[in-house]
């Protein structure tokens, strides 16, 4: 909002802004907070799980979740997760839904199976545009269909067409992930909170109590009723059935579930089964299981798989922390770059400033630093890095306080200035780049960073509500650093703290992987970040038949470090080929910035994704039930049933018979509550007749920018002041005349 911030005008401006804000605030206070009764919008945290479209654009009503069934198979550092969610359409209408499920950044999704009503739909991998077309056509014809797509690597979105009245919906997704390992401890996480869960409110409990006592009218003391009533034969509310199987060739110890009571069977030899204990499951916590392997590191860190006649492997490399625990901490030279272009104006800039201030506080006395800002021009606090003494730090603080966002975004000079300015080679040089990434010439900037990097490490911090994460993630990759995202002001300190801890640790650099015998190896990721102590890196690779061994080498705090890996000692793992494919696709995408044409990348990545049946930017899973939803006779359905039985094992138990008979009481009550909440919600469910599915096709919502300027209000305020001045002047003339 500041267009002229030259000093003389500042005071006046602030005063003016104050007046302006006061006016705006008083005008808008009344209409500011909309009430949501069970409605979620795409911005809410509850934007997960199955959502029904409402008549009002951008708003959804959550489908009641009746149960969750999770099976996780762990072999080594790979986990294969299969999730089933049981939902129900509690309305009497045909509806359309979307299902959003966030996953870890590197998960490789390869399976989508849905059951809507009594029909099974299995997704097959298709090229993205084609998949979309197949789905659209099916929807037009009134067929049940599902489409699993991804725009960003960590958010998957399923569209579900033609959900019939009172249909039960089972959504099954399967994917693999690598397990996080930190300081030798394996950590498995699973998000329990998918979609808004219905928790037994006192009203619901009261209702239940009255049903159970057989007298609908007595509702005394019900407020105090608690879980005992939700016991066995009624079935638990939102039952979560979760099992983890850890392949048992290697003994493990210290197995622990952090937030949920579990039953662990056979912690000795053979596979270990971990099961959630019956009873209530805290819905607000992720399931978290940790354990440690009981063997030397090398034995557990390499896995191979043979798939379609090709050989794949996975290796986990851990920096040698034990050898020299007291590494002399190299003195550092830290260069901060802060983006002060116009797009950073407002909140983003205050976040950036808060992060910078935090970082300055943490500088050690021996460290050197500099602050560079750029918008249309680049300028810096000091000509070159200076020691972090009191005087320099206080100068920096003043400099930061005075930063103001305006103008364009010319990043290149700033990046050059930061990367070229090294004069003391003995220091560990780290560049911290704070921006919203509003740039168009990404490819050029990536090349710039990669070409000038040398021994410097480039860390990016993404600021603001919609930063260009893609740019920052890749800039950090090319800079062999990390990317930190700060979504709002409250996060600034904790995220900066994490980053700072990373920056202060000694590292292993220049990592590479090479064959040790005859044969070849194709390993990903190709761009490897520096390894911090206690933080392992995982390579997925494909290797030729003859290869027996390979080595991983890097530059450690005390010289060259080499570790040999023997493929013959490797354990067998599952799903490695898919993880490899996922890494390869990521890597292909990055090669665009090295001059490979987009078409070539698309073609090659599509081939890999299709071959490995992975959902990616170029491919989607699509499933169509050939039988049109409408006009499906009962007989036809029952005929189809036998083949479907294995998948639907729990169907009757969860959803009851054809008219809801035999459904657990808890569920019936829950559905009733869902129906009631739909009625009181101030947006009603969008009904779609299956034959006319074409209509309600879209669920895409676009947020629109603010498009009114304060021009008129400025003019008005200005005129008022001028008017006041004239009035005063007139008064004075009058006074003089009277005398």
């Amino acid at each position, binding site marked *: 909002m500041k*267009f*002229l911030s030259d000093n003389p*005008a500042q005071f*006046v*401006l602030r*005063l*003016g802004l104050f007046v302006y804000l006061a006016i705006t605030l008083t*005008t*808008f206070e009344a*209409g500011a907070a909309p009430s949501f009764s069970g409605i979620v*919008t795409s911005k809410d945290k509850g934007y997960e799980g199955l959502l029904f479209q409402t008549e009002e*654009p*951008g708003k959804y009503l959550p489908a009641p979740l009746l149960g969750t069934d999770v099976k996780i198979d762990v072999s080594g550092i790979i986990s294969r997760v299969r999730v089933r969610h049981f939902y129900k359409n509690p309305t009497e209408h045909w509806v359309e839904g979307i299902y959003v499920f966030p996953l870890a950044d590197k998960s490789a999704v390869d399976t989508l199976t849905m059951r809507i009503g009594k029909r099974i739909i299995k997704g097959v991998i298709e090229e993205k545009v084609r998949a979309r077309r197949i789905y*659209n056509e099916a929807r037009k014809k009134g067929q049940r269909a599902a489409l699993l797509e991804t725009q960003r690597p960590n958010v998957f979105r399923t569209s579900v067409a033609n959900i019939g009245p009172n249909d039960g919906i089972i959504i099954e997704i399967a994917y693999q992930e690598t397990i996080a390992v930190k300081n030798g401890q394996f950590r498995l996480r699973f998000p329990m909170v998918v979609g808004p869960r219905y928790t037994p409110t006192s009203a619901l409990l009261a209702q239940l109590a009255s049903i159970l006592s057989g007298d609908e009218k007595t509702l005394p003391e019900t407020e105090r009723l608690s879980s005992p009533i939700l016991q066995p034969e009624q079935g638990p509310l939102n039952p979560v059935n979760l099992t983890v199987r850890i392949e048992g060739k290697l003994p493990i110890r210290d197995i622990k579930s952090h937030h949920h009571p579990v039953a662990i069977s056979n912690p000795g030899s053979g596979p270990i089964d971990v099961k959630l204990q019956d009873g209530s499951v805290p819905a607000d916590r992720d399931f978290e299981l940790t354990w440690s392997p009981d063997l030397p590191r090398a034995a557990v860190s390499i896995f191979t798989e043979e798939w379609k006649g090709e050989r794949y492997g996975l290796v986990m490399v851990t920096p040698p922390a034990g050898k020299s625990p007291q590494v002399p901490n190299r003195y550092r030279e830290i260069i901060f770059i802060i983006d002060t*272009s*116009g*797009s*950073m*104006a407002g909140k983003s800039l205050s976040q950036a400033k808060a992060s910078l201030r935090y970082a300055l506080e943490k500088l050690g006395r021996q460290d050197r630093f500099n602050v560079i800002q750029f*918008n*249309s*021009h680049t300028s810096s606090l000091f000509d070159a890095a200076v020691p972090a003494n009191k005087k320099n730090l206080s100068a920096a603080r003043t400099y930061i306080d005075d930063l103001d966002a305006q*103008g*364009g*975004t010319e990043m290149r000079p700033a990046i050059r200035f930061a990367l070229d300015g090294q004069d003391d080679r003995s220091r560990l040089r780290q560049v911290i780049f704070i921006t919203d990434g*509003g*740039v*168009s010439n990404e490819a050029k900037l990536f090349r710039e960073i990669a070409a000038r990097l040398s021994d410097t490490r480039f860390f990016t911090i993404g600021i603001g509500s919609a930063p260009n994460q893609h740019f920052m993630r890749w800039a950090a990759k090319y800079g062999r650093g990390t990317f930190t995202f700060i979504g709002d002001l409250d996060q600034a300190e904790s995220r900066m703290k994490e980053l700072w801890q990373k920056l202060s640790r000694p590292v292993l650099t220049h990592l590479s992987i090479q064959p040790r015998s005859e044969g070849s190896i194709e390993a990903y990721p190709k761009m490897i970040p520096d390894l911090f102590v206690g933080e392992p890196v995982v390579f997925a690779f494909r290797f030729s038949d003859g290869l027996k061994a390979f080595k991983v080498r890097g530059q450690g705090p005390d010289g060259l470090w080499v570790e040999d890996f023997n493929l013959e000692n490797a354990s067998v793992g599952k799903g490695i080929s898919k993880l490899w494919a996922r890494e390869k696709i990521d890597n292909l995408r990055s090669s665009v910035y090295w001059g490979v044409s987009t078409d070539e990348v698309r073609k090659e990545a599509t081939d890999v994704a299709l071959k490995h049946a992975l959902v990616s930017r170029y491919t989607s899973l699509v499933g169509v039930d050939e039988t049109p939803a409408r006009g499906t006779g009962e007989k036809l359905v029952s005929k189809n049933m036998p083949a479907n039985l294995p998948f639907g094992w729990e169907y009757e138990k969860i959803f009851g018979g054809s008219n809801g008979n035999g459904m657990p009481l808890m569920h019936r009550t829950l559905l009733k509550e869902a129906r009631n909440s739909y009625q009181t919600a101030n947006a009603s469910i969008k009904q779609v007749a299956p034959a006319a599915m*074409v209509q*309600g*096709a*879209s*669920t*895409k*919502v*676009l*947020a*629109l*920018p*603010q*498009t*009114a*300027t*304060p*021009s*008129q*209000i*400025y*003019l*008005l305020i*200005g*005129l008022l*002041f*001028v*008017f*006041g*001045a004239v009035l*005063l002047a007139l*008064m*004075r003339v009058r006074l003089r005349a009277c005398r």
Partner: protein
Amino acid sequence: MSRWVIISCCVVLLGIGLVFIAHGLLIPAKAVLAQYLLESAWQKTRKDKKAAKPWPWADIWPIARLTIDGKSTLVLADGGGESLAFGPSHVSGSARPGTKGTSVISAHRDTHFQVLKRVKPGSVVTLERADGVTRDYEVRETRVLSKPKLLFPPEDGRDRLILVTCWPFDAIVPDTQKRFSVLGERIR
């Protein structure tokens, strides 16, 4: 009361008033001036077949020319932040203007899109792409949205252009919620 007090009060009030007026005028001035500079960038874009910036440090560039009711403006790629001050901007997440599907363009109601006041169903809006191809869209309907959110029409193979701006047009204090939208469908 000393006359100096009154005179200095006068001067201070006048000063504050003029600064505000300057700011008030700067906004439309910027909007008009930027379009002149963009015009030459657009000619260059057309000629070189590649994005040209209107001034060397700009983080905006023109991607299409939009003609509404005889008034033509240059549409900018979505630059976030300040780009709306210089011209109508493509809203990212929608199709590129002039291509298949639904494109959304937004601009300030009191500068570039003041012209939307005069648009009625049946009016024709013309869009010229950087490669010289022009597309005509006939306005089907205009609508006031109660929230700054737009639900996309279904993808049914028709190409659409949606123009949005703040509403109401002449309110002095900007309403942060309501939007005015114009839906056009491609006719040639």
